């Protein structure tokens, strides 16, 4: 129950989380300024907006919210000199199960986010911006509001910021408990005062048609914090961290069956799944072995410790070759995890040991998606409910032989047939759990009276 100070692991490279759990650090502007805060904002104002966009492109920064889309490319969709106003929204909805990183930035280092946002707004010429924070972060919302007021008192917000001629207001907008508000077009509908029903694509990016049908940039908290550091060291220097196409650092949130769960920051791809679990997180619990890992939030496909994975890797002579490896040898970066059939997603790594019942785990995930589907599309609304009902009855001893195949068939009929990516997000867990742990599902379907922890169906 006690909130303890968590000291970083020596192998970490803390940039975004530099101030998290830092001894003597407080989240007020005085502390931030004392540490050289808002210097990057001053530097940004010596640059042209287009230059900053270019630096972000050069940096290779990819979105940290889930999809990993190149941030500079997204910003490039905003045409300079357009007639409509541009908006920027920080996605602080942080609702993907397994993900807990934005919370700590908001609570402990709000000014880093605000500075990143002001620079980003200047780069895309947005003069009104919002932080969409999930409703279950009431304290976070208060901290941000206070930090915004402090920034305004110091002339970092408002009219003619630091004499640059640039005007900007940032406000906090609170969600109210719906996961779908994290999907960027659902988020925008929510901000327009409507139900957060995701919008039909195309247009694929709110940068074309966003808030109030104006060009809008939506970025994750961590992504926007990175912008400050790109301005500080330059895009080319930033791109030296991590790997090509997987640059910078990444916040990893580890939960589940490891000895030391928690949040960690590494250069992208600097460690493998096995190193994360064994060297950083203290290994599995005594007497337990690794069974499965969900590497990028609950929507990412589960990976089994028993499987072999074929990945293309760079050889010492520079050529590419296909290497076969076990789960623990896969480096944690966007491209490696995608090549291994899952995704880096939101950085939420959920670890499961050999004591875990995979039907029980999938049922828990299915309950989440059945609860959170916004209900607009029939395949998603009905399918997510059916998947939950099937895993639920399997657990409670009412399964039938065909359940395993029915689950797969329902999931296969959701993915690719919906308005938003929630369709994939809810289908992938079922597809992957059933594919990787088929025997376990078949076995449970036959068993009678098998209730394993899930008390509601």
């Amino acid at each position, binding site marked *: 129950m006690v909130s303890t100070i968590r000291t970083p692991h020596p192998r970490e490279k803390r940039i975004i989380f530099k101030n998290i759990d830092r001894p003597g650090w407080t989240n007020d502007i005085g502390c931030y300024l004392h540490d050289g805060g808002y210097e990057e904002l001053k530097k940004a104002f010596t640059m042209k907006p287009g230059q900053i966009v270019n630096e972000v492109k050069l940096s290779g920064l990819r979105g940290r919210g889930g999809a990993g889309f190149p941030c500079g490319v997204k910003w490039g969709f905003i045409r300079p000199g357009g007639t409509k106003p541009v908006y920027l929204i920080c996605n602080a909805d942080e609702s993907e199960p397994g993900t807990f990183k934005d919370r700590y930035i908001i609570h402990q280092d709000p000014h880093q986010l605000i500075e990143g946002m002001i620079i980003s707004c200047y780069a895309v010429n947005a003069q009104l911006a919002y932080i969409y924070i999930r409703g279950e972060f009431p304290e976070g919302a208060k901290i941000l509001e206070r930090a915004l007021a402090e920034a305004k008192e110091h002339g970092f917000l408002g009219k003619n910021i630091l004499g640059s001629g640039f005007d900007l207001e940032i406000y906090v907008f*609170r969600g*109210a408990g719906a996961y779908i508000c994290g999907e960027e077009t659902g988020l925008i509908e929510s901000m*327009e005062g409507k139900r957060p029903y995701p919008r039909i694509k195309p247009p694929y990016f709110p940068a074309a048609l966003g808030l109030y049908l104006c060009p809008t940039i939506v970025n994750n908290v961590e992504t926007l914090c990175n912008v400050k550091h790109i301005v500080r060291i330059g895009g080319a220097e930033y791109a030296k961290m991590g790997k090509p196409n997987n640059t910078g650092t990444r916040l990893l949130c580890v*939960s589940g069956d490891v000895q030391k769960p928690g949040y960690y920051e590494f250069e992208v791809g600097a460690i493998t799944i096995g190193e994360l679990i064994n060297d950083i997180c203290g290994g599995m619990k005594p007497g337990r072995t690794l069974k499965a890992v969900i590497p990028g939030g*609950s929507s990412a496909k589960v990976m089994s410790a028993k499987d072999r994975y074929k990945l293309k890797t760079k050889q010492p002579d520079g050529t590419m070759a296909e290497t076969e490896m076990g789960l623990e040898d896969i480096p944690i970066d966007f491209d490696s995890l995608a090549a291994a059939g899952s995704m880096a997603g939101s950085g939420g790594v959920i670890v499961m040991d050999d004591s875990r019942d995979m039907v029980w785990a999938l049922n828990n*995930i299915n309950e989440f998606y059945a*609860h959170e589907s916004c209900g607009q599309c029939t395949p998603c609304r009905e399918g997510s409910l059916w998947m939950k009902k099937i895993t639920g009855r399997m657990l409670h001893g009412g399964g039938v032989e065909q359940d395993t195949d029915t689950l797969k068939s329902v999931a296969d009929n959701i993915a690719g047939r919906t308005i938003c990516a929630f369709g994939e997000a809810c289908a992938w867990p079922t597809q992957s759990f059933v594919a990787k742990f088929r025997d376990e599902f078949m076995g449970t379907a036959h068993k009678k009276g098998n209730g394993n922890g*899930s008390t509601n169906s």
Partner: protein
Amino acid sequence: MEIPAELEARIDQEITHFPISKRSAALPLLHLIQEHFGYLEDEAIEWIAQKLGLQPINILELVTFYPMLRREPAGKHHIRVCRTLSCAMAGSYELLDTFCKHARIDRQHNGHGAHSLKSEDGKYSIEFVECLASCGFGPVCMIDDDFYESVTQEEVPQLLEKYQ
């Protein structure tokens, strides 16, 4: 339903955050009114609609969509326990049961997604919620606006003691 002047001033202030469309203030106003009155009665929904130049249905459809908005009062103290995978692995189902036992909440007929359950004396209400974004330190719960990590079942009585 009487909106005190101070609350109305905050509401008017909030509306200024949305210079393009007053409708955007719908959810923020719902939060402010629910924080003040504890829940959202018909009159509140009509009041917000009128304030923003909307139809009551435009407000009601938000109330029925968002899990955090409620149409009847919660207990004096509202408990939220995270139900999702990482917390479930860390024992959140057991934690919920323990809270119910000590808060004297009858959970017999409660399904997930149902309205939150209240103790008979109205002191506590409880709700299973989805991932609260602290999955590494489960099981996680909130009591009112306060947040608690790594909560053990043994700590439940002393936690409840803090909220009288």
